[in-house]
């Protein structure tokens, strides 16, 4: 018999993103919690359903600023080249750093921008600028990339936050987009923030919530204005989030993924990011410390890259394996590049005249190396890319209008500055 769909009986995947989940939970007796999220979400049906929900984005944030010369834009044999050797990649003719061997095999998935020319040379301003595509000195409350993605790709009635980040990450928050799109900050390996542990036993919590709902329903008859509604929705979200709490716990499934991502905090963060986007979170940022190698650049990078290589390539592999890579944009960047000149402490300082950012996955054409620096990497030789151009490319790949208009008071503000252009060559 061809099973028909009767009202009141949902197919499992419909429990995913909507209030159906909440209703399902409410129908059970007081204190019952939603079934094991990990279990629900690791099914193929669910992945297919999740894919329908539009694009998502994972930002791998290289805090301090990774060196382009010791990763994707090597200058072997030049005075600026440094001691690292090149290795062949999957892309004929393109070579990259020996300490990223796994990523070298994933180059067919990458859009590599070697011609970033940016404006903010230091950490706080650079972190702000590379998260918002606007200058910090304007003193305008610009939202971070994650908040913008949360606004346009998040669902108001989702059970999980729309913007999750962990480790060293951005510093701007939701800005003028407001608290609905504010980041939800996890610890480095996914530990939940303050105030996510109920102080009441589950049964008390549940009867208390029911009494609250009764009162709100009474009140709603008289007062339906938007602020009241916004209050109700946010309260329900806070409860749903706690019911989905087990999703943030990777203790059970991490051992099976440790080999793929590497046994590091950053690797585990990448794995959690993969789980979260699969569960419908549209934006996750994972930060890796610390690339600010003013001294001993090569020691620093060798260590960091060996953490980065399995984590990043593991993430791409895992996204592909679970059918999510085509909908998940993975961005690799930091706030600055590093100077071609090697200083007298074997370090490299901050550099914004020509550095590298890498995109992969959803909406991006793989196997493309865009732009170039000159022979010693001292400046962009062709196709300079600004912060605005980068963000326009990211937004376009995600299906967000780069010229979306917002207001701060009466002043109009756009998602990217005037004149920003998406890089067509990188868009799938």
């Amino acid at each position, binding site marked *: 018999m061809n099973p028909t769909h009767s009202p009141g009986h949902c197919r499992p995947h419909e429990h995913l993103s909507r209030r159906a989940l909440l209703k399902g939970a409410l129908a059970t007796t007081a204190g019952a919690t939603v079934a094991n999220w990990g279990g629900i979400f690791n099914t193929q049906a669910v992945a297919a359903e999740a894919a329908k929900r539009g694009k998502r984005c994972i930002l791998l944030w290289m805090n301090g600023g990774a060196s382009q010369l010791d990763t994707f834009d090597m200058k072997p044999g030049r005075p600026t080249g440094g001691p690292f050797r090149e290795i062949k990649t999957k892309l004929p003719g393109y070579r990259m750093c020996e300490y990223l061997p796994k990523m070298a095999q994933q180059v067919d998935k990458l859009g590599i921008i070697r011609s970033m020319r940016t404006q903010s040379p230091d950490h706080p301003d650079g972190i702000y600028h590379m998260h918002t595509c606007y200058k910090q000195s304007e003193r305008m409350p610009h939202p971070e990339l994650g908040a913008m993605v949360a606004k346009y790709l998040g669902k108001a009635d989702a059970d999980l936050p729309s913007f999750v980040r962990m480790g060293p990450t951005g510093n701007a928050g939701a800005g003028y987009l407001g608290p609905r799109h504010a980041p939800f900050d996890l610890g480095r390996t996914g530990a939940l923030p303050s105030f996510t542990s109920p102080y009441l036993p589950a049964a008390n919590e549940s009867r*208390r919530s029911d009494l609250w709902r009764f009162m709100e329903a009474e009140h709603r008859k008289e007062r339906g204005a*938007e602020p009241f509604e916004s209050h109700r929705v946010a309260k329900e979200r806070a409860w749903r989030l706690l019911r989905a709490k087990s999703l943030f716990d990777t203790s059970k499934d991490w051992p099976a993924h440790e080999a793929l991502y590497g046994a590091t905090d950053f690797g585990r963060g990448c794995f959690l990011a993969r789980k979260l986007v699969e569960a419908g979170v549209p934006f996750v940022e994972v930060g890796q410390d610390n690339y600010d190698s003013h001294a001993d650049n090569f020691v620093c990078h060798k260590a960091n890259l060996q953490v980065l290589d399995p984590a990043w390539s593991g993430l791409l592999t895992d996204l592909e394996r679970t059918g999510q890579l085509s909908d998940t944009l993975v961005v690799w960047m930091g706030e600055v590049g590093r100077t071609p000149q090697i200083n007298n402490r074997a370090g490299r300082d901050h550099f914004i005249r020509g550095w590298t950012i890498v995109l992969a996955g959803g909406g991006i054409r793989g196997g493309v190396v865009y732009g170039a620096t000159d022979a010693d990497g001292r400046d962009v030789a062709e196709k300079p890319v600004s912060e605005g151009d980068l963000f326009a490319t990211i937004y376009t790949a995600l299906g967000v209008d780069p010229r979306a208009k917002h207001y701060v008071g009466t002043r109009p503000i756009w998602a990217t500055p005037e004149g920003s252009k998406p890089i067509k060559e990188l868009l799938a």
Partner: protein
Amino acid sequence: MNTAAHLLCAAAGWGLALLVSAGAAEPPLREVIDGHLASHWKKSGVATAGRASDATFLRRAFLDLVGTIPTYDEARGFLDDKALDKRARLIASLMADERYPAQQAQAWDLALFGRNPPNSDATRNRSAFRQWLTGKLARNEPFDQWVRALLLAEEDGSELFYVQFQNRPEDLTEVFSRIFLGTQLQCARCHDHPYSKLTQQDFFGMAGFFVRLVSLDQGTTGSGNQQVRRFRVGEKRSGEVLFAGNMKEAQPGRKGDPVKPRFLGGAALDEPALPAGFKEPEVKTGTKSLPKPDFSRKEKLAEWATTPANPYFARAAVNRLWARFMGRGIVHPVDDFGADTPPTHPELLDALTREFIAHKFDLNWIIGEIVNTRAYQMDGGGPAAVTPPKHFERARIRPLTAEELQAALRTAGGTPADTDNVRNEYFLRYFGDPNNGQGDFQGGLGEHLFLNNSDNVRNFLRRKKGNFADSLLLSTEPWEARVDRMFLTVLTRLPSAAERAKFVAYLQSDTKPEPLVEEALWVLVNLGEFRFNH
């Protein structure tokens, strides 16, 4: 004195007498306001809300005027009062309450600094400034006078408005113009304004008044949370802002030309030349004071800004005060008077401005008139989609500020101040700025995780010796009466029959009443009805 002069004086005196007698015959401003609004509603066919219940009005007036909710006794007393003039009497007594100037100072502080003022080292602890301003408001010093003192920044505690913009005369220009002139100059900082007549010359002309200000660090006093960094504001005799043309065409290294100060929409400043051989005193780290210059730009600005003849000052002020109580400016947003934001009620705005000046910028008088209107005392109910109400046809709904929420929790919980162990910074973090860029309320996840799971909130609600939960548990009254007391204490109203029945059943649903009382109180303070001033 010659005859002609005598005549002039006599005529002037007579004119004054006429003005006074005419004033006496005029209806009070509250009636003028209601008259304007009524004719506007009639003309545009706007349906209006009814009069707010006594309970609703009571809560609203308490929050707006003294920054917290009424206690049970205050609520009971007001609701039981049968006198017809009880609302007017309540308003008068709240305005005489010692919490009133502090609450009004808090509102001005938020306008002048926002939640994240620049120069955070200096502005984090603003207790000295608030004390200064609260003192002014407690004496009901006329608005023009205390603003003049603020702009001169010579009184102890008054300096911080300038200090937040140390070495940023352009930022100061934007904020000064927005708050005191109701004019948005920031567009003209980078380019001539696309929609108005404002040009970059207007912007830099105003910035010229601020460019010579210097913040002089006086060191810190106190320690820990009480640590305050003190400043004095000095003024140099030389120095100009430089104007380098449209920002888009800016070239590195091109510094621009000096711009002379000019009053917005008015004349250039008439400034005497520097005295021969003048040498600017050096300002170094550790410089504590500067000699007063023989010509002070800030004095000229303070004088121009606050004179009754200034076309912006009084209008911007009444519009801001109106919005504070009515939820929306007659010009909206409050600080954007311009061609594309015409006043919704131009004659009303004229009347408010005129009367505010005629009453010598008396803040208490005009606030009293506004909150005594029928318009302020309307209901805010209904499934209204448009907030704030464009025609003032019903009351606005505004979220409680972080400070009000904390005070209201303290009142509701019967918690003596200083015993609640509450971390103020959490309240600021989760309730400090609940709006998006356009001022619309947004409920955030963080706010609710905090309300749901934090001891900082629970401390107000759980049983402690002598607090409200304790008194409910010790009481031998029937639960019906205790539920009434809970509602009146927390929500400033009595429960409906259904609510009463539900709560009575809830509170008896288990053998241990203590957790139930705490949970029921938690429910009440977590309602939208508690979260907003409506």
